[in-house]
């Protein structure tokens, strides 16, 4: 039996190399496009402006309010204020979320919650981020996050046509 092994050792060695190599080669057309599809966040400081999905976004306000004062004692209210200047209109709405890894150790996301607390957005602000018409407008959106868990929120802006690129304003 060992004679057979010795006689075929180079072929067996080649097999040992070629089998994993063929798996790798087969996965390449799937792996790199997958990597490219992962969300790529562009970080933007408050006051700075970034162009995204044909509009200029600037975070002008970001506060964390105690939910006890706004009818939601189990939560805090994060209020984000942005200036959105639509330069090249796109028929889309941009979605805003609050992102934070505080409290859980991994990133969690909270959606817009305009009607979930006593916080009323003043009339001079839009509560919907539509990129369909050219022009500049102010957006203010409240979010509900777990109480005392989010001290440094980040606002993520997502426009579906511009994925995987997203903006993170903080």
């Amino acid at each position, binding site marked *: 039996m060992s004679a057979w092994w010795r006689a075929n050792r180079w072929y067996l060695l080649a097999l040992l190399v070629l089998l994993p190599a063929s798996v790798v080669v087969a996965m390449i057309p799937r792996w790199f496009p997958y990597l490219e599809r992962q969300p790529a966040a562009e970080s933007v400081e408050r006051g700075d402006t970034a162009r995204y999905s044909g509009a200029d976004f600037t975070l002008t306000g970001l506060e964390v309010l105690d939910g006890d004062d706004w009818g939601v004692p189990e*939560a805090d209210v994060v209020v984000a204020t942005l200036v959105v200047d639509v330069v090249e209109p796109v028929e889309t709405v941009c979605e805003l979320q609050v992102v934070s890894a505080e409290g*859980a150790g991994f990133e*969690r*996301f909270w*959606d817009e919650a305009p009607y979930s607390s006593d916080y009323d957005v003043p009339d001079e602000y839009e509560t919907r981020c539509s990129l369909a018409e050219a022009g500049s407008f102010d957006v203010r959106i409240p979010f509900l*996050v*777990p109480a005392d*868990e989010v001290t440094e929120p980040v606002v993520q802006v997502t426009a579906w046509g511009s994925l995987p690129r997203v903006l993170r304003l903080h």
Partner: protein
Amino acid sequence: MRARVAVPAGVGLVLLAFGATLFTPTDEVRMAPFPVAAGIGEEVASQHHVATIHEVALADVVELDGWRGTTSGVWLVAEATLAGYVERTTVGVDLFVDGVRFESTPRADSDTVDGRVVDPGLPVTGAILLELPRDILDRPGATSAVLRLGAAGDTRLDSVIEWRIDLTALEHHAEVELDRVRKGAP
């Protein structure tokens, strides 16, 4: 190859090919969700939810915020606390007994804790209700029913939480009064 081996081997291979469809895993197996097992009273997380089921029982009639639910079968009643895990998620609940699927009732509007969205870190507590046939306790699978919690709709290849429940060991009430969904743990 010796002829004596070749012919039976050939026939054997044909039979194997003939039976290939018998051995192919069905869609039900290939597309099954990935469950996280949970016990009553235990807080468990899947990729979508953080959930605790506090109590499970059977009832003939349920009352929930003015709605009186009667049935020709029997109600499975559970009280649960649910939250999202990473992001806002929908909630869907099913019960499986001997491969038969029962879904949480659409009859109670939005007063049950399923059929809504939940957010991370913001738990809500409320009732889960399912209608089951009157003879469910006589079925062989009643001692190992599976209650599954996932995102609403399609749970194929998705992360779900499952509780194994012995329906025959549950308390059976004539009537149960339930509370509407409220924020926080019970």
